[in-house]
């Protein structure tokens, strides 16, 4: 499956069967999903399931076409392989046009949740909305068209604390009108002439090395790397769930849309803090990045060199003042590629993940003192906010508002 990845070097995007794919960790996945599940006065679970069904239908259809897989049994085998390759776990079971009951083992969301929260909370509701949408999408792509099937999680490992989940799939009486993925979206024509701040970190050399790493689901269908659980997610799943969620908040209770935005930003912040914190403490960082580092600001550059290897687009640190301020440009951010293909424009900056990620990179370097290899746990993270003086971010230029690229600042408060 690694052979099927297409790296768009100038734009620093990664495609798989026509869909942009990006890496994110379980901290991000869980916080973002939790945010969307929280308000029961909108159908958050419906947003998560439906978006998964739509985006994975496009991915699977692209895979079947590109690899010329015609037989139903082979399509199902490929769908299961892809599910594991992306880091979601293992999906097993016999299927037919009438539906089927699927067993999900080593679920990314369920095991990630149990690892992060299981010692302090008893979960009462199923968590595998992505897998539910994926299962329905697989049946749609194998036997019919988008919207022909629906799925339900009947047993969830995060609730039972057992060793598997069960997902039941069945055809619907009337096909639901669903919207396929916009694919790569509105990508930039060519890279903009953005000047990187002075550094000894070689972004492009790191990009090449990291693009070559064989990061794929293991025998359990999990991607364990840098002390987190990773997924190689179609970017448009994240995009669709976050923007639909905000659309739903705005429609029902517009006063709380800003709260939704804040929490999505936080999902970006927690993601970068843990994932990049762990990356910066890894042996890979020591061997690949550390030799290039000469100053404290090079730590931040190193972070962005890695970030621009994850399929997120071309991230450039254009200005940095040690321990005080930074300005980051993103040329062709995955959020805007989707946004501009889906919405006419935006009245405000809409790259919510990046708005949280940029201050987080400064926080992990200057407030988490990552060079001293602290223990990256909840205490360190919570103290970051409790003690104040952390960095806050702002989107100051936005492609979704007509600027040629997006820019973000992080300022010490």
């Amino acid at each position, binding site marked *: 499956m690694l052979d099927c990845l297409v790296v768009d070097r100038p734009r620093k995007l990664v495609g798989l069967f026509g869909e942009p794919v990006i890496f994110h960790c379980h901290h991000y996945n869980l916080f973002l999903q939790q945010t969307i599940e929280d*308000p029961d006065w909108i159908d958050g679970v419906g947003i998560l399931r439906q978006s998964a069904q739509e985006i994975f239908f496009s991915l699977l259809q692209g895979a079947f076409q590109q690899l010329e897989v015609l037989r139903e049994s082979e399509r199902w085998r490929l769908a299961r392989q892809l599910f594991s390759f992306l880091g979601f776990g293992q999906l097993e079971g016999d299927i037919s046009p009438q539906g089927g009951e699927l067993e999900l083992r080593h679920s990314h969301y369920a095991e990630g949740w149990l690892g992060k929260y299981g010692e302090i909370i008893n979960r009462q509701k199923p968590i595998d909305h992505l897998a539910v949408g994926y299962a329905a999408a697989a049946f749609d792509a194998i036997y019919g068209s988008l919207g022909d099937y629906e799925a339900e999680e009947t047993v969830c490992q995060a609730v039972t604390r057992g060793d598997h989940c069960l997902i039941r799939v069945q055809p619907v009486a009337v096909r639901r009108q669903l919207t396929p993925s916009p694919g790569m979206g509105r990508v930039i024509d060519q890279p903009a002439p953005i000047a990187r701040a002075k550094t000894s970190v070689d972004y492009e050399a790191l990009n090449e090395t990291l693009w070559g790493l064989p990061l794929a689901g293991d025998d359990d269908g999990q991607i364990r790397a840098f002390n987190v659980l990773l997924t190689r997610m179609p970017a448009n799943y994240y995009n669709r769930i976050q923007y639909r969620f905000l659309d739903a908040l705005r429609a029902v209770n517009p006063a*709380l849309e800003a709260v939704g935005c804040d929490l999505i930003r936080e999902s970006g912040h*927690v993601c970068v803090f843990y994932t990049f914190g762990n990356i910066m403490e890894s042996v890979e960082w020591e061997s690949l990045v550390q030799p290039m580092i000469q100053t404290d600001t090079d730590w931040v550059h190193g972070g962005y060199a890695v970030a621009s290897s994850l399929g997120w687009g071309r991230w450039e640190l254009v200005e940095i003042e040690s321990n005080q301020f930074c300005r980051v440009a993103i040329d062709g951010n995955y959020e805007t590629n989707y946004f501009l293909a889906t919405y006419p424009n935006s009245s405000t900056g809409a790259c919510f993940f990046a708005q949280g990620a940029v201050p987080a990179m400064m926080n992990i370097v200057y407030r988490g003192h990552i060079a001293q290899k602290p223990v990256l746990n909840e205490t360190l993270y919570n103290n970051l906010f409790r003690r104040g003086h952390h960095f806050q971010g702002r989107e100051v230029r936005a492609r979704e508002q007509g600027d040629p690229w997006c820019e973000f600042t992080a300022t010490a408060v």
Partner: protein
Amino acid sequence: MARTLESVLQQHVAGLPGVLAVLIGRTTDDQTIAEINYDPEAVADIHSLGAYASDLVRTNVRFCQLFDAQAMADYILAGSGRIRLLVKAFPKSPYFVLMMTKVTTELKLVIERLKAILLDAQPLLPDPTDTTKSTAQLLLDYARRYAPDPNFVLLRLSLKTGLHPEKLAKGHLSANEVRLLYRGVAELLGVERLPITVD
């Protein structure tokens, strides 16, 4: 000069090695009403310490009521391999005194100092009904102590309840809104009931 709770704490802790913090707290609203923080680096948030101790005292009172109703609640010992927490409730009162020390501090000495504080502070304790916290604030504080991602609890509860965070933070909620908040906090923690009474 008139004696205060702080001066009582100061007097009886003086000269005891390894003390990190001492405080007098109240279980009815988890407030810390007198405190001395000897090591702000180790005890970053002394009010949280008081609130967690308040939970310990409540749990111990409940335990004593269930299993040994005739006897008074005794010392509560908690802590880690490096720090120790010793808590003792004032008799028939929602107030308690807490001392946090290094484990190297001799326990017998700590108990002696706590006994002296209990005696001398008793007449200085304020009226326990003199509390300004609403039920909504108690619920929020509880969620911040026990829910994951405590810095974002207010925002999550705002989405769960449909109430604006500023309104939630002020704590002036209608009875129905308090019930919504109660349900939201219980859901965050994955429990059916909370140890806070709602009308």
